[in-house]
């Protein structure tokens, strides 16, 4: 059999852009699923992926990755390496597995949508590999934490988390359902692969792999590396897609899709990665602060990339830059206070040395956030753990906590002023909370109890043991039943519907 080089046959083999005889274009590529009708069908033929791979090469690469990674896991599982990891790092991976494993599988739905409804054969070909990638990522990131169950019982949150109505999961699911699952192929290309993967997670996975090796977590480092190399390949779908849009006068639509999802990705990214980098990762293993990471990898490189295409900074860019210095610090205080409601063991990460590091990386940290930790630390030293635990619910916004810069409240007050101009009944936060409160706080449901949630051992530093009792929901502690979770889910669906309606209006 003659051995042809790939370039001799690649374009011909992948070209399945057939002329339809028995159906029309709209039937094959319904707008709701494809989203590509803004551009003429023939214009999509110019879609060309910069990194090409054949199925034979793909399978060879993936087998090699799996063999290496699973072999390493087998070897490590017979050692005491995991036991010796810093508790803060264990928080990083437990949080990661719960929040990311299932979305990886959900991303395979998004990739499959592009694999079927992408308007170009080259795009569909690339997305098919992406589908296989994401199925692998979902499986491997569930298999690995399940292998840790005898040492880390909360590894089962990798599968369980997205089947709960945990408030962090609501926030993550709300984002990823909109981005991966309830989205059209065009928007997925720009929002999942271009904005989230190219902008945030691909770079994050590079950093996490390096950090994992640095702290001695060879298993997680190998896992993340094997995933990141897939991401780097299938994330390239965004670039040719935005190029086709711009070349055909649809730059504004591309800009809107990116602006929309960049902001939402940032908020979740700050919650998951900001806390991991600046508080959970052992001090000696921190290579850079979260702010430095975002400035170097997102602000400079990603922003340069999309500006190369003639796109502008998102209209809220100044607010985003402003938030780099405070948002995740406020979130960290909130998550730590509400720690019985999350599935990982939030490491306070505010020892004397860590506070010095935080002040160096974030000048003014002690003035804005250290003073809160002073009060908390005093309560812990007095043994008053109950004073470090919540007795009421935080206000959340879609549904990330409405955090504030240590009481300055500039962003929140701006939002409040904006909503204040609307009739009260139409303010989104009020509308959603009222719906919940009609049930939750109706006098017939009984008064809120002020009994503190169950005390938990170890409040500060790295001495918090992992135990199966961790993660008792504050809703239950406050006397609510499972119905509160179902109501939260309904609220999430309502928010999603509102988002889709706004999106449709724009179109």
């Amino acid at each position, binding site marked *: 059999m003659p051995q042809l080089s790939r370039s001799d046959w690649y374009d011909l083999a992948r070209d399945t852009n057939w002329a339809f005889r028995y159906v029309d274009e709209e039937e094959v590529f319904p707008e709701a699923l494809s989203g590509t009708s803004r551009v003429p069908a023939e214009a999509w033929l110019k879609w060309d992926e910069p990194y090409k791979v054949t199925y034979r090469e793909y399978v060879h690469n993936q087998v090699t990755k799996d063999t290496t990674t699973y072999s390493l896991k087998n070897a490590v599982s017979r050692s005491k390496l995991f036991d010796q990891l810093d508790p803060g790092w264990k928080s990083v991976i437990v949080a990661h597995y719960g929040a990311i494993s299932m979305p990886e599988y959900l991303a395979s739905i998004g990739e499959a949508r592009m694999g079927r409804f992408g308007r170009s054969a080259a795009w569909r070909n690339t997305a098919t590999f992406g589908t296989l990638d994401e199925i692998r990522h979902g499986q491997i990131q569930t298999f690995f934490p399940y292998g840790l169950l005898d040492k880390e019982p909360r590894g089962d949150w990798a599968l369980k988390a997205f089947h709960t109505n945990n408030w962090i999961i609501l926030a993550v699911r709300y984002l990823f359902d909109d981005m991966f699952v309830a989205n059209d192929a065009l928007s997925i290309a720009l929002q999942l692969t271009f904005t989230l993967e190219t902008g945030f997670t691909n770079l994050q996975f590079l950093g996490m792999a390096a950090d994992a090796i640095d702290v001695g977590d060879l298993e997680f480092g190998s896992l993340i590396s094997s995933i990141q190399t897939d991401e780097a390949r299938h994330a390239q779908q965004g670039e040719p897609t935005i190029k086709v849009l711009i070349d055909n006068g649809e730059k504004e639509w591309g800009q809107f899709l990116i602006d929309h999802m960049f902001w939402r990705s940032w908020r979740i990214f700050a919650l998951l990665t900001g806390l991991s980098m600046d508080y959970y990762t052992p001090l000696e293993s921190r290579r850079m602060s979260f702010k430095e990471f975002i400035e170097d990898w997102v602000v400079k490189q990603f922003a340069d990339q999309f500006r190369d295409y003639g796109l502008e900074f998102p209209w809220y860019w100044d607010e985003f830059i402003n938030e780099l210095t405070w948002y995740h610090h*406020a979130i960290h*205080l*909130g998550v730590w*206070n509400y720690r019985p409601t999350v599935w990982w063991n939030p490491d306070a990460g505010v020892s004397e040395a860590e506070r010095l590091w935080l002040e160096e990386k974030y000048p003014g940290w002690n003035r804005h*956030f250290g*003073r*809160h930790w*002073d*009060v*908390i630390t005093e*309560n812990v030293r007095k043994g008053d753990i109950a*004073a*470090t635990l*919540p*007795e*009421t*619910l*935080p*206000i959340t916004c879609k549904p990330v*906590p*409405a*955090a*504030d*810069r*240590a*009481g300055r*409240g500039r962003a*929140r007050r701006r939002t*409040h002023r904006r909503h*204040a101009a609307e009739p*009260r009944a139409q303010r989104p*936060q*009020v509308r959603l*909370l*009222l719906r919940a*409160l009609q049930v939750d*706080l*109706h*006098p017939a449901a009984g008064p*809120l109890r002020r009994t503190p949630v169950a005390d938990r051992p170890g409040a500060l530093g790295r001495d918090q043991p992992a135990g199966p009792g961790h993660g008792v929901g504050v809703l239950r502690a406050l006397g609510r039943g499972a119905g509160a979770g179902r109501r939260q889910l309904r609220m999430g669906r309502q928010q999603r519907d509102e988002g889709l309606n706004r999106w449709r209006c724009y179109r």
Partner: protein
Amino acid sequence: MALLPLSAQFEGDVLELLIPVDDEDTVEAVGAAIAHHVVGRRVAAQDVPIRLRHNGRVLDPQERIGAAGVAPLDHVEAFYA
């Protein structure tokens, strides 16, 4: 006598909280209810009175919260006077 859930923040704190009160409670009692979740927990205690601000207006401590024009889920701010 009716439940009045409020969206509240204590000046200097980082979190916005859900604070359920009664519309017959005094403004002073509402300030204390907000402080219960914040002062000595994340914000250091001070031996000074706590006041309440609503839509930019500082409320009379002895006024009934329901009569002060504060509606369900309105945002209120408690602060050290």
